[in-house]
């Protein structure tokens, strides 16, 4: 027999249990990327996750790290307290777009502006997933949801909020990137971005922010494959991928 070394193995910080997410929901993939980065950076032991409210509320069942469950939208505020009390730990939040961009908008903006040494993993699936697909601040114009059945209308609801660009514009942000999970190439890019968002925390540069464009096939009323296509066809044209801020690259140049 040949040496049976698997080319692909799961990080040990990821619990090997079935996840409760709908078929094709990319929360599971986002969890795995976070787990891989924690492991590769060797910080799994001292990581503290701040969970949020949304479909990922049970993240503590999947990531084998200490977790604090924050009230809806307040994860960046809780992360601030945890990090200040335990500066040697690696603190990150995992939040949906309803959580971060709506009820928790004030918390994320001030946390980034203060430059807290925390990492924010922000999953943008353009709806409130857990509660049945209501309109989120990130819902695209024309997108139908249960609370905008005729499609989001610019006159009444405004356009989708581009969180990554806003957070990148704040003084305390060290790194801000937007990535997607729809192709092999994009998943690899996404992992690099998550890695970097943790590195800036470890190097005490400031806040690390990654916006991950992700699917919610159930509330988009699409098959997982259709939903995945929607990322490149509808989301990326409006929410461009890329690194919007990286203070470490500016230092390199200077």
């Amino acid at each position, binding site marked *: 027999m*040949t*040496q*049976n*070394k*698997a*080319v*692909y193995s*799961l990080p040990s910080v*990821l619990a*090997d249990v*079935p*996840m409760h*997410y*709908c*078929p*094709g*929901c*990319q*929360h*599971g*993939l986002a969890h*795995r990327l976070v787990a891989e980065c924690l492991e590769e950076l060797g910080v799994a032991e001292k990581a503290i996750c701040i969970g949020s409210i949304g479909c990922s509320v049970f993240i503590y069942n999947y990531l084998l790290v200490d977790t604090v469950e924050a009230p809806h939208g307040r994860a960046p505020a809780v992360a601030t307290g945890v990090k200040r009390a335990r500066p040697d730990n690696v603190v990150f939040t995992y939040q949906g777009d309803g959580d971060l961009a709506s009820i928790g908008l004030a918390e994320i903006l001030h946390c980034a502006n203060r430059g807290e040494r925390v990492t924010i993993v922000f999953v943008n699936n353009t709806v409130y997933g857990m509660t049945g697909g209501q309109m989120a601040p990130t819902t695209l114009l024309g997108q139908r949801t249960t609370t905008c059945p005729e499609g989001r209308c610019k006159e009444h609801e405004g356009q989708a909020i581009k969180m990554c660009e806003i957070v990148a514009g704040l003084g305390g942000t060290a790194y801000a990137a937007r990535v997607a*999970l729809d*192709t*092999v190439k994009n*998943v*690899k890019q996404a992992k690099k971005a998550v890695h970097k968002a943790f590195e800036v925390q470890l190097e005490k540069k400031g806040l690390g922010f990654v916006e991950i464009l992700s699917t919610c*096939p159930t509330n988009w009323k699409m*098959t*997982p*494959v259709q939903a*995945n296509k929607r990322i490149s066809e509808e989301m990326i044209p409006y929410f461009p991928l890329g690194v919007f801020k990286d203070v470490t690259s500016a230092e390199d140049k200077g």
Partner: protein
Amino acid sequence: MRAIAFREDRCKGCLLCMTVCPKQIIIVSNRFNKAGYKVVEVLEKNVDKCTSCAACALVCPDNAIILGPRKRRKKGEVADAREA
């Protein structure tokens, strides 16, 4: 070790893996798992076409795919099915 195996109890039949396989060998089976999802499979005759490129495992949201070593096995050397 089989080049590719599915943990059928984890598969939710989303078919995302099918869309990224460069060899197009992942297909829908006619089996349902305990949770009621129709799982995917690679037919035994196609297992050798798998290069363990890991594209499928990378996009699987449910970590249902197990890959063997990237090295191609010798002709005639049949890998154990399922057990990874």
